[in-house]
């Protein structure tokens, strides 16, 4: 069962390239890209334009996961945060290269390409973005 789900995950290019889109009517940026803008709905159709994000932002909130899913067990305890990207959208990602007690709300972070998890059954490795403290 797991394999099918995993294959689906692997085929999501936004996990590597940080390409979102922007509503041509209200300029709101979306990541992952959306088919239409939830604020402008009908008026946004056909006006969504691809846009590259910088992969930088700020921690809005976070947790330290101690009881993790099977494929993350070797990584526990690990911090997960909601990050508000400079362009506006919020995403969920792991914070890395940072002592657990230094993760804070308001911390400036930037993306880094990492291994996210390894499927315990197939051994397949999945990559994507994690975030680390921004260098000043």
């Amino acid at each position: 069962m797991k394999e099918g789900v995993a294959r689906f995950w692997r085929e999501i290019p936004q996990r590597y390239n940080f390409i979102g889109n922007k509503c041509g009517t209200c300029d709101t940026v979306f990541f992952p890209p959306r088919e239409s803008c939830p604020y402008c709905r009908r008026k946004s159709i056909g006006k969504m334009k691809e846009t590259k994000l910088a992969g930088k932002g700020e921690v809005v909130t976070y947790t330290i996961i101690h009881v993790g899913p099977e494929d993350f067990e070797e990584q526990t305890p690990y911090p997960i945060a909601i990050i508000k990207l400079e362009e506006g959208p919020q995403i969920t990602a792991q914070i890395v290269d940072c002592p657990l007690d230094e993760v804070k709300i308001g911390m400036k972070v930037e993306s880094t390409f990492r291994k996210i998890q390894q499927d315990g059954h197939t051994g397949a490795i999945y990559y994507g973005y994690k975030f680390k403290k921004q260098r000043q």
Partner: protein
Amino acid sequence: MRDVAVIGVGLTKFGELWDQSFRQLIAEAGSKAILDAKIEGKDIDALYVGSMSSGRFVDQEHVGALVAEVSGFSQLHIPATRVEGACASGGLAVREGYLSIASGINDIVVVGGIEKMNDVGGTAATEILATASDQEWEAFFGATFPGIYAMIATRHMHEYGTTKEQLAQVAVKNHANGVFNPYAQYQSPISLESVLRATTVAWPLGLMDCSPVSDGAASLVLCAAEKAKKYTEKPIKIIGSGQASDTLALHGRRDICTLDATVYAAKKAYKQANLTPKDIDFAEVHDCFTIAEICAIEDLGFVEKGKGGKAIDNKITTLDGSLPVNTSGGLKAKGHPVGATGVAQIVELTTQLRGEAGKRQVKDAKIGLAHNVGGSGATCVIHIMEAM
């Protein structure tokens, strides 16, 4: 639209029920409700069953028809529909039953809710529950369900000064109520220290901030209000029903600390009932995690945003407070077999409004509210009830 009333209720014990199967549990709850309502199989126009993930928990989908069959109705060919909205599956099944009677299509409907979560083991249960979050943009990155609620807690603590002690007091209160509920998974009181000392699941939430993994089923019989007195002395009317949705992922929301689905569903239910939050005497709210109860009492309008922690300090929501919350023990102590929860909440409101809640009876309980959430707030369904 016609008025709708509850005329029968049934519950199984909630807990780790190793010796009972999915089929036994739902048949037990259903037959208790049907006996309570004093109806016969031929009176039933339709069946709605809430179940979040029977496919992954017990390897069985298509449980609408299965429930009709194990309840002994296969020869009556009653229409049977399974309803899914993660942990709000039960509440949604109640609402579907309600709507089908209110619309005039059905007169009598049986609603069931069930989940059998322990058969798969703890790690698998965590993964299955995570399917209620956004698999591609939350769970993929390692966010668990407790982790997502923990992020609400961290932000709530940051913005409003809510403390770990206030969170813990929610668990202490709900376990204190669970002592008086013979169906509850946990029926012993717990101390503040034991909650604060418990192992961390997802900081700032510890094990005792979490609802447990549970098996259990609940059932109701709904009836057109005009016919309800034929079956029972004490029909309990549903006077408001509201439902709303939001983004699956927490990070997609307007505000991390507000469940807008609760706000919108509540607005609809209050409007239909022609009531305000002040008119509610007691409530069953979706305390899947302690922080969830604090957000719920804020989003339902019982207290101002950010004052939920203070309300716990001031003991407003205890059994003898001005607005008792989770008299059943809540998801925390009663247990949280996810598909059963929304139905079990209505069972508690009915029991209270009938005046049959024994040692946990709320004095002068006239109007109760039930609040059932799916995921971290992507689905919310609210019912307001009153004795007829």
